[in-house]
């Protein structure tokens, strides 16, 4: 059934259809609608889940960890300061190998206080070991939730789904709503191999001395690497049932492109419109959306970008003292394998709009600049 719903509610519908058993959350703008609708669904029986109201995001993730260890499919949603407060527990979920799914609405971090979008909240969690998938439309957001559970449960790794504040979270779009019955054909019931079970007792969260710690870390990295194929396969399986697939990355008009703009999140669709315009003018340009950020799809990215003459990366984030985070990742994907110039552009921090003209400016700069000197270029900073 098709409905016009907001981005946040497409997350809630994805969670409902995935038959999650425990939801625990703490409110924060611009995420709150996700859990408010879920709370209503828990009440009216649309979803047979327990809704745990907690006193902070730290407790929300702790409750998800407990629920997941007890063998339940667990979900939470948060944003910005809330995600940062969860940090300790995010590590825990990874080390404990629990397939929790979290939706993070990308919101800038304070101070100064901001409720508007940028990616520094989720990207500052890059190294904790959560898989990260960046969504672009309400449909993709909804569909990515059951995909995330399937990936998470197979790899025994937690997955974070990321959507832009307001540009996606509060934007209404037509969504083909998936149902539990349909999702059952795709996502099997969650049956963990080990769980907290009085009939088959295990001990969780033990001391791991130097003799075992490294091996456990090795296994996490192994799961991440295996993740690339699992995500691809799961996406195909989803497509077989629902007719929609999203891939690890999404190249657009890249085949003969001399310049490729790399994007993520909602900027991707705006960029495609600019690409079309520039193509009409005869400019050979394309774009590449990075959907899956962790594990980073090195091979797939190389495959597309290595054919271009120049790569421009648009980052709605910054790693202070270095540069754009996607930019760094792209550079490491191409390092030593090609000498194409890669230029980084920082734009749209704290919710500043990345309009078609901003993207055009970046594209023109990238094309015009033969020997870009600075690896970090700020777009639209007021003097």
């Amino acid at each position, binding site marked *: 059934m098709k409905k016009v719903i907001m981005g946040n509610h497409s997350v809630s519908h994805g969670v409902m259809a995935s038959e999650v058993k425990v939801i625990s959350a*703490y*409110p*924060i*703008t611009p995420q*709150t609608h996700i*859990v*408010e609708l879920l*709370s*209503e669904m828990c*009440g009216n029986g649309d979803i047979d889940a327990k*809704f745990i*109201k907690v*006193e*902070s995001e730290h407790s929300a993730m702790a409750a998800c960890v407990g629920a997941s260890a007890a063998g339940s499919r667990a979900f939470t949603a948060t944003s910005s*300061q809330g995600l940062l407060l969860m940090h300790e527990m995010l590590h825990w979920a990874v080390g404990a190998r629990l397939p929790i799914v979290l939706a993070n609405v990308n919101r800038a971090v*304070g*101070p100064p*206080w901001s409720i508007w979008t940028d990616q520094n909240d989720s990207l500052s969690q890059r190294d904790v070991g959560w898989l990260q998938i960046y969504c672009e439309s309400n449909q993709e957001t909804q569909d990515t939730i059951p995909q995330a559970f399937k990936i998470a449960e197979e790899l025994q790794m937690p997955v974070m789904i990321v959507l832009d504040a307001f540009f996606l979270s509060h934007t209404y779009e037509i969504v083909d709503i998936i149902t539990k019955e349909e999702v059952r054909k795709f996502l099997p019931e969650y049956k963990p191999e080990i769980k907290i079970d009085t009939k088959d007792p295990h001990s969780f969260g033990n001391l791991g001395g130097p003799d075992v710690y490294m091996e456990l870390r090795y296994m996490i990295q192994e799961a991440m690497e295996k993740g690339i194929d699992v995500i691809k396969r799961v996406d195909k399986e989803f497509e077989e049932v629902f007719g929609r697939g999203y891939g690890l990355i999404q190249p657009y008009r890249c085949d003969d492109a001399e310049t490729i703009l790399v994007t993520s999140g909602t900027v991707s669709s705006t960029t495609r419109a600019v690409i079309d315009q520039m193509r009409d003018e005869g400019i050979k340009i394309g774009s590449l959306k990075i959907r899956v950020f962790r594990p980073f799809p090195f091979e797939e990215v190389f495959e597309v970008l290595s054919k271009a003459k120049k790569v421009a990366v648009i980052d709605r984030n910054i790693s202070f003292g270095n540069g754009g985070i996607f930019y760094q990742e792209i550079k490491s994907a191409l390092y030593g394998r090609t000498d194409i110039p890669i230029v980084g552009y920082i734009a749209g921090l704290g919710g500043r709009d990345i309009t078609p003209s901003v993207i055009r400016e970046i594209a023109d700069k990238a094309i015009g600049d033969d020997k870009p000197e600075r690896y970090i270029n700020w777009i639209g900073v007021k003097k």
Partner: protein
Amino acid sequence: MFNYLEYVREENFPHIWCSGCGDGIVLKALIRAMEATGMSRDEAVMVSGIGCSSRTPGYVDINTLHTTHGRAIPFATGVKHANPGLKVIVVTGDGDATAIGGNHFIHAARRNIDLTVLLYNNYIYGMTGGQCSPTTPIGYKASTAQFGNIEPTFNISGLAIAAGASFVARADVYNAKQCEKMIGLALEKKGFSLVEILTPCPTAFGRRNKMASPVKLMEWLRDHVVSGAKWEKLSEEDREGKIRSGILIDVDKPEYTEEYKKLTEKLRAV
């Protein structure tokens, strides 16, 4: 007429509060109390967390620090320690101080550090649109308790007393004069002092609970809050469902930064 303008940052007006919100009444009571105590504004620091209540410092023309959700008290603890000569006022909400920041609240009271905490209790998370807080009464509705809350609540003043606060008072915005008086006493008290201020949130709380009109919520305060003197005269039966306002505890205890100083002096004298 009292000149409030001297105390506010005019450039930050209009304020963010909804019409009918009680937070503005607290702001005015606070300003009058500051004036009445004759405290130096340059030596006062107001620290807040996040929430509608925590926007208060934005409007007061003294040193202010608007911090993260739940953490106003630890930030304030840092300020007080760094310069014990400062008068440190914390402005916080029921969610800010007793949900996400509950731990800090009880520990600051236990230490009896010299902070004046003004806790605006509106029974809800106002700023994020009306989720259940630790003070949402049983049976009342919130966006995360759409079928009525089932969780027992905190008695915030009771919590502070049990944790060791040296001054605790309860006030409400219907009785604005009393509110001003309680804030004044708290400002003058050395040690951890709390004024729990009951204030209406028509937007996020009232609307869901058949009290959408701010007047209804004010009437609720009028009918439920009983001052200390009257309370004493009420029978056990008549106290049922009523809330006692006024001073709940006022004791003298060693203050943390002073004890710290004494210890340092002792150690260094050896």
